[in-house]
């Protein structure tokens, strides 16, 4: 009986989709003209890298596309953007960065080639669960201890994985009167490896710390986002500690500029499909380590990027004064 109904059901769904969302057919018709190279703007083996690779795996499994992840880390994602700018705008080259790559970092670089309007934003996957992280039971496992150590004259090594993170560390230091030794490392994994090895004392991590925090290995001594952290609801917001700004943002996929709208929609919706489907490994990771999927696409994403760029301009002005 089922095998009789199945084609009927499929046809009915197809018609329904065609009627209700005419653009969906446009996107449905789009298939990548070849294997997709997925540039990953994060160090291999870290949380964000794993996220990108699981999304790639999900796209392959759900859509039958070939997706080849390729590392392009460094320079807060701008190395990836530079790589992507040279790639064909036909949907065969996409990259995973963070929203600040095309807002704060591109503005700070001062190169108009990196302007967010020269790229196509496809979809976000998760919002930062940004915390200021330290080893549990160490010398810096609370903000009070950090302040105390600074007053005692101990140099404090502050790890940051991007220019914006580094500038925010500097800004926070200026507001509270601490001259941090700011160390730029590769990704949240670099921050956590540095903490474990005793190479740095505190650092910003945007979600990958949730496992170690749940296990009691590390602590969030503060948070950089508006809503309380899932694992450390008591961690104070950095604006409460003296910062004028928050450190929020998204993990997101981008493509070269002037991408065919059908390709943009198809890719964006495909990423949404993988991220939001509770059957996929990508969804499992997003829920476990990144506070759940947070997918924004199309105009909604464009308006967020415009807002993020306005805020970034403000922060850059503040730290360069």
């Amino acid at each position, binding site marked *: 009986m089922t095998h009789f109904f199945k084609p009927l059901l499929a046809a009915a769904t197809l018609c329904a989709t065609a009627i209700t969302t005419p653009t969906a057919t446009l996107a449905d018709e789009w298939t990548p003209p070849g294997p997709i190279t997925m540039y990953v703007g994060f160090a291999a*083996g870290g949380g964000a890298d794993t996220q990108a690779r699981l999304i790639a795996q999900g796209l392959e499994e759900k859509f039958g596309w070939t997706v080849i992840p390729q590392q392009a880390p460094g320079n807060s994602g701008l190395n990836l953007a530079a790589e992507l700018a040279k790639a064909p705008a036909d949907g065969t080259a996409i990259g995973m960065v963070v929203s600040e790559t095309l807002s704060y970092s591109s503005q700070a670089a001062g190169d108009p080639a990196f302007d967010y309007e020269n790229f196509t934003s496809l979809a976000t996957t998760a919002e930062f669960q940004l915390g200021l992280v330290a080893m549990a039971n160490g010398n810096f496992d609370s903000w009070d201890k950090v302040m105390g150590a600074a007053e005692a004259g101990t140099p404090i090594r502050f790890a940051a994985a991007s220019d914006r993170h580094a500038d925010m560390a500097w800004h926070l230091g200026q507001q509270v009167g601490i001259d941090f030794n700011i*160390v730029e490392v590769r990704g949240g994994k670099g921050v956590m490896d540095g903490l*474990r090895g005793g190479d740095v004392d505190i650092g910003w991590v945007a979600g990958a710390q949730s496992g170690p925090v*749940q296990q009691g290995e590390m602590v969030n001594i503060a948070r950089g986002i508006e809503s309380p952290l899932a694992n450390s609801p008591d961690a104070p917001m950095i604006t409460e500690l003296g910062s004028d700004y928050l450190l929020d943002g998204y993990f997101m996929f981008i493509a070269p500029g002037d991408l065919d709208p059908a390709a943009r929609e198809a890719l964006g919706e495909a990423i949404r499909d993988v991220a939001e489907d509770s059957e996929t490994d990508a969804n499992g990771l997003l829920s476990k380590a990144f506070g759940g999927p947070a997918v924004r696409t199309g105009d909604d994403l464009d308006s967020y990027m415009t807002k993020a760029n306005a805020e970034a301009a403000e922060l850059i002005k503040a730290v360069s004064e």
Partner: protein
Amino acid sequence: MTDLLNYIGLGIMAVLNGPALFEIGGIGLPVALVMLAAGLFTGIAVGATPGLAGPMAMAISLPLLISAFGFTPDALLPVFAFLIGIMKGATLGGAVPAILFNLPGTPDAMMTTLDGHPMARNGQPRRALRIAQLSSVAGDSFSDIVLFVCAPFLAVVVESYLDLPEKTALLILSISFIAAVMGASVGKGLLSVGLGLIVAYIASGNDLTPRLTMGFDALDAGVPLIAAILGVLIVGEIFATLETLWRNNRALDVKTETHGTAQDGLAPGDLKRITPVVVRGALIGTVIGALPGVGSTLAATLSYSLGARRARRIAGAQPFGSGAPEGIAATEAANSAVSGANLIPVLSLGIPGNAAAVFLILAADSIGGFNPGPAVFAMPEGETNPQLVVAFGIFTLMAIGNLLNWTVGGAVMRSMSVLARVPATRLLPVVLLVSLTAIYVQETSMFAVWATLAFGVLGYGMRRLAVPVLPFVIAFILAGPLERSAREAFSATGADPWFLFSSPTSVILLLMAVAALIFLGRDG
């Protein structure tokens, strides 16, 4: 402790419970095991073919393996399995033509010809092969056990005692040591290291405009890793060998043939005779192997000459060079013991010591999800460290590889003697073609192919001028970590320009680097 046992268990399961390639009688054969066996047999064949060596086979198969298994973490173990199989097989296979035809199949089997071939000429080729197999596998197994114990320990020590400036100093020490011990002179070693660093620093670093590209757009993304390494190591070697063959009018042809007599095979008392020699050889090989850059040829030479000296002192002992089983055992145990110990600095520090290790790092780098270095052995509370599982998976594969070498290795070895007859003049052009195709498959750009050929010419020139090529490759790989740790150390010390001299440990490491250059160098 229970954590450690858990990880060992997970590592073994990762190998045995991996996806099955095919089923025999309802039992699935895990793909990693199949790849290990395939790699091992390939390795024995490659080792048994004069003119081919393990690293060459690893280089060619790596791009093909990656295009077959993809870039997911699941690909790590099958790819490593094949490469480790080649590494282990080639050390074993190198003895075959050395014994049967007086032709070393791999450079480190040179010393095996000295006693192996006379024994074979005396009508006992099977006995010689059997002794070579037993000593080689014993040396290899011993050195692997040292690796399993030492690598995690060393990594933990390094991570907990070394701060950023000291890590930078350690990398400087490694590079200096390699420059000092490899090749004809310190000057040439340093030249090679310097070239490797310069090439690696093209278009890397933190600047948004790629540096050192001299305006060539093709260099904007840097020199393709695989093109530089394969070009210098493999293509350069092919060019140099082809030229030698051309000049010597195919002098590498097979000379003597041997036939077994009725009482061929392991003689009674052989095992007792070779045991002490094997133990000594394994120790020498392991110690030498753990130092980056010091090759298996040195280990074999050292172990052989020590053995020969002892044989001269003991009355009634069979002198080396006349087909003494101890001679074969001393060489084979030592050169095989190098391969396991060589991975100690690779896994614990990310510092490769020989060409085989270079390709394992290259594999990890290309696939992603596994970064050889201290972080591999971190045991975060409660959370599973996937890299540690992979590390124990690799250890499991090595142990199973040894088991295969013990059991079926001998039979495979004996069947490979026919390969020594393949003329190198036919073989090398095929290898060249396959290498270039493999590079194109991975990089899908003609630029990578041209770059490989250019580096091949560089490698050829370096060989002709007696500049060692391995320091180039190792410096090329370590350039990134060196710059990164120096940058991090600089900022962590509050922008102190003298950060390298900020602690006694780092000063000692730097002094050791200088001492290595002064005292370990040899005059060209």
